[in-house]
């Protein structure tokens, strides 16, 4: 069909597909799944950091953390809007999250027992997210690509803040240094797994790359991330918990050890530290707020009715 050809031309020429353009159903579905998962991740991702807002150890850090968690809510809203352009409602997506049928990034099923985790999340988790997301700024679907441009800007700000938290801890008391190292030990491997399974075990990646939704393979992105981390870890003075990391002159990259994917699949299957708690908290917020949303709807309906009556009277 001519629409199909037009779609293929857009992809081939690295142009953007826009909401009004024709697109294959599978392309639409893939994007809806990916964007809404991304949105859900931002929303669930508020919790591990929200855990420290009331206990942040300085007012400056408290302000930065509040702003960051709030940015995440903003990113969530922004991404839901992008997904809506593909013909799914925000309520439908949100229901999928709350009912457990939609996924969110597994990384947020880990917990934040110490303040240093605010640093590790920024440095490692946001760092990995950026590696993932920078190429998405060139995603073939316009609204998603444009959303990512804005989000990436803020994420790289967040990553710098996380780095700074760890740097301050590593320059602090021996207790603070231990806290930082212990936290990096916990977050390093899960962050590397954020790029998804090894390329051989990632069946959908191929098609996403053909559609120019995805631009690099999981393993390519993971390598890029490790290459970025190693020199930063040296600046921080933290040890990355992988004895196999070493520079490979030949490849021009850092080699690194094999990851324990069993744990990844355990968490993915719902048996992580916080899977049930994360969803239960989100559901509780939703249920506790039901009467508020209902009141807002009733008020809006009433206002509309008043306005109609007024218009009728004028007419």
């Amino acid at each position, binding site marked *: 069909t001519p629409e199909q050809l037009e779609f293929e031309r857009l992809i081939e020429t690295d142009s953007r597909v826009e909401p009004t353009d024709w697109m294959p159903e599978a392309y639409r579905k893939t994007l809806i799944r990916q964007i809404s998962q991304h949105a859900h991740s931002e*929303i669930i991702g*508020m*919790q591990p950091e*929200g855990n420290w*807002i*009331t*206990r*942040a*150890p*300085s*007012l*400056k*850090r*408290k*302000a930065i953390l*509040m*702003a960051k*968690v*709030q940015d995440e*809510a*903003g990113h*969530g*809203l922004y991404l839901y809007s992008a997904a809506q352009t593909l013909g799914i409602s925000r309520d439908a997506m949100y229901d999928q999250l709350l009912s457990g049928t939609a996924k969110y990034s597994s990384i947020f099923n880990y917990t934040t027992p110490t*303040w240093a985790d605010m640093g590790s999340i920024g440095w490692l988790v946001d760092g990995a997210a950026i590696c993932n997301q920078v190429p998405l700024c060139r995603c073939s679907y316009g609204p998603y690509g444009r959303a990512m441009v804005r989000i990436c800007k803020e994420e790289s700000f967040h990553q710098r803040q996380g780095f700074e*938290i760890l740097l*301050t*801890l590593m*320059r*602090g*008391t021996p*207790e*603070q240094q231990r806290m930082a190292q212990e936290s990096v030990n916990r977050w390093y491997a899960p962050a590397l797994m954020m790029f998804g399974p090894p390329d051989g075990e990632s069946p959908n990646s191929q098609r996403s790359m053909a559609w120019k939704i995805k631009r690099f393979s999981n393993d390519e992105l993971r390598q890029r991330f490790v290459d970025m981390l190693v020199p930063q870890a040296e600046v921080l003075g933290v040890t990355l918990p992988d004895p196999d990391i070493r520079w490979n002159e030949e490849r021009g990259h850092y080699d690194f050890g094999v990851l324990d994917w069993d744990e990844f699949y355990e968490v993915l299957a719902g048996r992580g530290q916080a899977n049930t708690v994360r969803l239960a*908290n989100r559901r*509780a*917020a939703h249920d*506790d*707020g*039901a*009467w*508020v*949303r*209902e*009141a*807002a*709807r*009733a*008020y809006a309906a*009433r206002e509309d009715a008043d306005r109609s009556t007024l218009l009728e009277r004028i007419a």
Partner: protein
Amino acid sequence: SDAVARYALGLGDDALILAQRLGEWIAHAPELEEDVALGNIGLDLLGHARSFLTYAGSAWEKSEDDLAYFRDEPEFTNHQLFERPNGDFAHTIARQLIASVYFDALYGRLTASSDPTLAAIAAKAAKEVAYHVDHSVQWVRRLGLGTDESHRRMQAGLDALWPFVDELFRPDAAIEVLGDVAVRPETLRDEFDRTVPAVIVESGLAVPAVAPAAGGGRAGVHTEVFGHLLAEMQVLARQHPGATW
């Protein structure tokens, strides 16, 4: 001077403690837009707090963090309203309505302070709290006129917080002596009484007829929830005295 610093300290504590309460909401709000809105308001207040506390601390060679993390309960001088628990969303909105209109009136007047630092902080804060007033007024209206349940909850929220209104406007000898530097609290009552009861009544709600609480926040007297709030707020900083973050 010490008297000016103590005045700034009171204003700083008000903003800090309310920001701390709003921080408890994040990731638990009734909708994402409110996670953003309450977070914004909390951030604004935290900004005000930091300015006031930094200014207060400059008189005593103390940092904002010395003041926020290493004072005990009786040394905190916030009014009791700001430490009251979040309760449900209607309670929080009732507290926000009272707080925002109070801040709005106060900062509007403090902009003319003869102390240039206080005037500058107030000028910046005044712009932000105007938005906070809007936010709370809109929600009082929605909840008051929304459903039976939201009406009931909104009224309960107002009833619960109203005993803590009176304290905000009581004459304060420590302020009298400051002349043009400070705003005498009792002079703000008119503006509050012109604004808030009207909002309440227009929203189909009743202005609560309840006895005022004894108060004493500016003198370090607090309600029983306050110790719990401080325990949480200060726990990490106190575990590592002298550390930098």
